[in-house]
């Protein structure tokens, strides 16, 4: 576990999950978060580059760590955004058998998916994103950044 003092978000790197091209945004999102799910179609439909970073808050959404691990494992087989799209689109079906259905539908190797999603490497990869969000002051999801600047957070009364 690393330093969690304030810092700008890291620049986009080769192992980031990137959809689209050109100028765009970085989103810290929780795959178990209903607000993220509601916002996801708009984020996916906007022009430009979308960079996804993991920000699972397990105590708030207990299934989130498993969903992020599943998306990351799908990403190892080139289908990260397809898995994320599917998880956000059907939030009522996120147990393991539902993940396996998605794996089959996306044409992924199930044995590899199962090994990857339980690996320490993927856990560390997700935690790295989470900690970079903590350092950047993410206090709710989805949190959108333009380069290093926080663009928006959800506003609530209290």
């Amino acid at each position, binding site marked *: 576990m690393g330093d*969690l003092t*304030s810092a700008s978000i890291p620049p986009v790197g080769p192992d980031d999950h990137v959809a689209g091209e050109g100028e765009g945004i970085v989103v810290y999102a929780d795959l178990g978060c209903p607000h993220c799910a509601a916002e996801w179609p708009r984020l996916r439909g906007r022009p430009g580059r979308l960079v996804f970073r993991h920000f699972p*808050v397990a105590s708030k959404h207990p299934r989130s760590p498993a969903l992020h691990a599943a998306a990351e494992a799908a990403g190892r087989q080139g289908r990260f955004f397809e898995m994320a799209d599917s998880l956000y689109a059907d939030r009522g079906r996120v147990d393991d058998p539902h993940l396996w259905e998605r794996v089959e539908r996306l044409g992924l190797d199930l044995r590899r998916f199962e090994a990857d999603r339980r690996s320490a490497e993927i856990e560390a990869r997700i935690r790295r994103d989470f900690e970079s969000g903590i350092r950047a002051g993410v206090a709710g999801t989805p949190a959108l950044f333009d380069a290093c600047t926080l663009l928006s957070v959800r506003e609530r009364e209290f």
Partner: protein
Amino acid sequence: MIAVGEQAPDFTLRDQDGEKVSLSDYRGRKVLLIFYPGDFSPVCGDQLSLYQEVKPQIAEKGVELVGISVDSFYAHKAFQEKLGIDTTLLSDFEPKGEVARAYESYLEAPLGFANRTLVLVDEDGLVAWTHEAENPGVFPGANVIFDALS
């Protein structure tokens, strides 16, 4: 807001299990008091959930977390269970908000609850650092806590 360097006012409140807890119980250890408006509000839930995610790293810094609001300890228990957190929650219930008032964090009627305030109390019971949110609708990210502890 109570000033840094002052003696932190001692108190005795009931925790989520109805057990009495005093600030002086923490003497010799650092404790971060988290004053928040109320159990089950969306922002309070997000705040305590987020801090739970980095609680081990906060503990590595030798700091314990204690939440305080005007809710009853029964509500605290249900809130703690709903969030799946193990942070101690203290009930500033009767007289309502007395401890929040002592720390100058209380928002008077019509609000009637503590503002979102962090107070770090050191091993000697002195206020070492504070942070008060600009309004109850926002809370400081955990990075702000780590900045204070670095």
